[in-house]
């Protein structure tokens, strides 16, 4: 059976229906972990990996054809770069004192609320969002590349 690169590689009806119900929930949970990274256990890496799990579940359940239709390589590359650059840029904000100085928390115009609220902790929420975006797009890109450019015959 040589139908490389595309076989009809999607799973059955039950798996697809369950995945359609579960993927949004996984995404919401991952977004919660990323957004509350400075308040609760977790953070950018963990939440990004959780959201990437939703993307990988989509790839596994719906197959490579559907993934290729919905996956935009240049968009994901750009988002990963933007995540890394936002991380560096926010770290640069405190250059007046030191690299990685949390100037938004000490004297910033925003993100300096009471500790424990969502809009507190200076650059930590922005950094969590940047790292989460980077990890999510990076892992989904890597898994899609592995699935798309495989060299073994099925």
């Amino acid at each position, binding site marked *: 059976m040589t139908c490389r690169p595309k076989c009809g590689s999607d799973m059955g009806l039950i798996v697809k229906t369950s995945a359609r119900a579960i993927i949004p929930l996984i995404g919401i949970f991952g977004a919660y972990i990323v957004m509350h990274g400075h308040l609760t256990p977790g953070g950018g890496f963990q939440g990004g990996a959780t959201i990437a799990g939703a993307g990988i579940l989509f790839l596994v359940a719906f197959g490579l054809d559907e993934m290729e239709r919905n996956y935009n390589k240049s968009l994901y590359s750009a988002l990963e770069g933007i995540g890394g650059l936002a991380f560096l840029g926010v770290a640069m904000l405190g250059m007046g004192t030191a690299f*990685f100085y949390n100037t938004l928390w000490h004297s910033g115009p925003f993100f300096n609320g009471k500790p424990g609220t969502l809009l507190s902790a200076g650059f*930590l929420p922005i950094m969590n969002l940047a790292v989460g975006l980077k990890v999510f797009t990076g892992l989904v890109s890597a898994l899609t590349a592995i699935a798309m*450019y495989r060299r073994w015959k099925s």
Partner: protein
Amino acid sequence: MKRTLAYLSLLFILGVFLYIANPNYGLVFGPGGKEWLSLRYTDNYYITHGLKEVGGMNIVTDIVFDYRGYDTIGEATVLFTAIAGAVALLRPWRRDES
């Protein structure tokens, strides 16, 4: 019989580990009590000053993104490089297309 013996030996090993890990009469890894504070002052510094200096309730996030920010930058760079390398290696080669 063999299976029962295997489970019993597993249980015995678990008991030995539990005995060793007990801080009261097992192995002691480093000093405890008041001496702990004089030797591991860095941990205590993060716990007492992290909320005031960085502002996050999650001390781990405070350490990872502020005190140890360079480490996180290196980690992000490693991730970026790994994915760029993986995609560059896995993409179809000119040899395969012909």
